């Protein structure tokens, strides 16, 4: 019997006392184990980082050249104090990992952000047996259920095609890291037309291409000639570019947002986009339930999103479950 839980939250993050590290700390610590490179999970300022090898190029960009990051191949166990740590693909973005922590046969897995649907831009999720599973719950309500990616990709293409015929630009808002590359990879088998991208997206495209991900050819919006017409073109941009002066150059444009939140009509209409494409890098409700089953975990801790609802549902189905408060944002609406 372990005296203290293997993982618990302290002021800085999810702390493994026996291993002397924090997972995805929200304040600088001595040793940080990072699940993936999104800003709410990977924050700068820690003295040393440990991450899955495929995540390191993007992580280095995000944390700065001076950050000390040790790369570990997926599946390889690393000794830290009394525990062994390993990374396992989470299927969320390139290099995203679940973090497995073991001490004398006791296994905890922190899922980080994850999804189960096939994604041509990253390694597929791998279920990891454990006793305690800390799962995200961003879309932990039964209303969230995703269509298959190729279906959504064809919808995006049809929207682009319709706008092309009407001589309008198609501005598709999506996260710069992960979602943008997934869209570019999903469209690659369907068309050869290049896409234009916002300046925050292109450096990440380079990291993905270097990792061997096939994507549509891309051009930087900022490198086009003054007065260039974007009529008929597809433009990818982060949501923060919406409503800014950057948008003016596109003239009459149709706007869309690719996000799991677009599943709900009211959310889409409130945001005022012309179209919403339901495409998420998080697990939907059926996949959350299936994943929890597959880990065989005796105990589940849910975090961010609809953590309360998911935990209560699991408890009612006879599984020990509780919530774990963390400041991770999951997929935000902006």
């Amino acid at each position: 019997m372990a005296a203290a839980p293997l993982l618990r939250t302290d002021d800085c993050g999810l702390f493994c006392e026996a291993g002397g590290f924090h997972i995805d700390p929200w304040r600088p610590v001595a040793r940080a184990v990072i699940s993936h490179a999104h800003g709410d999970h990977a924050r700068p300022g820690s003295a040393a980082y440990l991450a899955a090898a495929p995540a390191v190029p993007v992580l280095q960009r995000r944390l700065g050249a001076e950050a000390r990051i040790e790369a570990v191949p997926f599946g390889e166990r690393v000794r830290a104090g009394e525990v062994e740590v390993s990374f396992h693909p989470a299927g969320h973005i390139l290099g995203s990992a679940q973090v497995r922590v073991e001490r004398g046969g006791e296994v905890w897995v922190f899922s980080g952000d994850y999804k189960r649907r096939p994604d041509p831009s990253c390694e597929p999720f791998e279920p990891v047996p454990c006793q305690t599973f800390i799962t995200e719950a961003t879309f932990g309500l039964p209303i969230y259920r995703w269509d298959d990616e190729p279906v959504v990709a064809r919808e995006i293409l049809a929207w682009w095609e319709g706008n092309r015929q009407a001589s309008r630009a198609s501005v598709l808002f999506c996260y710069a890291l992960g979602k943008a590359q997934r869209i570019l990879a999903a469209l690659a088998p369907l068309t050869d037309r290049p896409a234009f991208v916002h300046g925050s997206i292109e450096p990440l495209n380079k990291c993905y291409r270097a990792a061997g991900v096939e994507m549509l050819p891309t051009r930087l919006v900022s490198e086009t000639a003054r007065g260039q017409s974007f009529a008929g073109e597809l433009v990818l941009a982060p949501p923060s570019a919406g409503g800014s002066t950057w948008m003016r150059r596109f003239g009459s444009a149709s706007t869309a947002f690719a996000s799991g939140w677009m599943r709900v009509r009211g959310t889409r209409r409130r945001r005022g986009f012309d179209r919403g494409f339901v495409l998420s890098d998080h697990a939907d409700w059926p996949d959350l339930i299936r994943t929890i089953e597959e880990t065989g975990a005796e105990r589940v801790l849910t975090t961010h999103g609809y953590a309360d609802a998911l935990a209560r549902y699991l408890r009612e189905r006879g599984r020990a479950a509780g919530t774990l408060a963390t400041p991770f944002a999951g997929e935000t609406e902006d």
Partner: protein
Amino acid sequence: MKRFASLYEALDRTTSTNEKVAALVAYFSSAPPADAAWAVWFLTGRRLKRFLPGRLLAGWAMEEAEIPGWLFEESYASVGDLAETISLVLDGRGEAEAAPDLPLSRWMAERLLPLRGLPEGEQRREVTGWWRGLPRWETFVLNKLLTGELRVGVSQTLVERALAQVAGVPPSTLAHRLMGAWEPTASFYEGLFSPGAEGSEDGARPYPFYLASPLDQPVEELGDRDGWLVEWKWDGIRAQLIRRGGEVHLWSRGEELITERFPEIARGAASLLSDGTVLDGEIMAWREGRPLPFAVLQRRIGRKKLTEKVLADAPAVYLAYDLLEHQGRDVRDQALSARRSALERLLENGRPFLPVSPRVEASTWEDVARTREEARERGVEGLMLKRLSSPYRTGRKRGDWWKWKIDPFTIDAVLIYAQAGHGRRANLFTDYTFAVWSGGELVPVAKAYSGLSDQEILELDGWIRRHTLQKFGPVRSVEPVQVFELAFEGISLSSRHKSGVAVRFPRIARWRTDKRADQADTLEGIKALIAG
């Protein structure tokens, strides 16, 4: 159903007027008349009584989806729309049994309308069977039809424009053909497309109303004062009074037939007007030559039965201000000056129930502006300015009719409760209750839903979440800190409200971040406005 559901989806998906019209034109050009008739019915905001209560549908959906009630409730709170929540939780249960498509008209005639006569068990078997055969969006549209809440984001004007384009008749002719009571049948729909003018029209059918726009320029810029008719702007029920074929029909602007609510007006019209007469005017609660507050008029609408007491407590008159049909002829093309003179001759003996809305005799725009200051005292909303040379137009066309309302009352009040909205505003706290001070306590005086920008709504939503004191179901009480300037059109004493006052059309004018809660208004101060 597929075709109609796709139209709904296309309309729901875009905010562009042109795209909406294009989607409607595509639909009306291709849909079978029997289907299109139902589509026109729903798109112009006509309703059927709900077939099933939403509560019942929700219960069946939970069991179908195998989720507990509380989880369905959480989902509903997050979606903000019951029909949509049901379609989302039912989605993905396998489309292997996808049913062949049935046209909308057959859905109505063979499935939905017969549903009313069935016992609950069979209703359930029918509805859950349909759910299994339909994809998500069609399930959503079906649920909207079942709960009688089908509302499509398209204005009647756009529907008229699209139909007129397909039919090749002027939009005003089409608008007229869509007025009043009609049945959604193939022959009605085909009649919309008949060439030429009115033909044998339904005797009860009203004309499309002409709507005024708010005056947004200095009044002097309207030109010569003599070119304009000035009237009071009444705070009553806009209505058309029709005398045709020996009968009287009173239509509200919401296209409801309200003849029976106002027997004295109907009797007056029967005795004073000859067949082939249509008037435009305002129903007012009226006593001793003065308007009574709108709340009094509401009693005539709200009561199931019109007792002698209600008739005596809320006496009504019809203030006529325009003549649309005279001696069986549509006179809407004549100049207002001519229509008005004919109206005045016609209703020379109109009192007591059919008086003509008087002209405001002020010889210069300056005098007109001064007269407007008397509006509140006279119990009216302001002035109407109508161009004497203008025809009676259709819909809201700017330029000939202006409403020049008096500035609203304003008070500073404190936000005390908030509730999440629905639809587009689900998940956001957008329904607010405001209070003012009375003997050291905050007393609620108004609820308001509008007036803030989207940015302010988001900001306030965040603040409400961080400063909640208590939750009562969907309602949260918040720290009494935020002060807002509220504007409203009228105020009256009320025994139904805790504060003792009722305000009309309250909305948020400004977020007073510069004021502290203790600087908000007092109830005594507000009551003083009534006297003023």
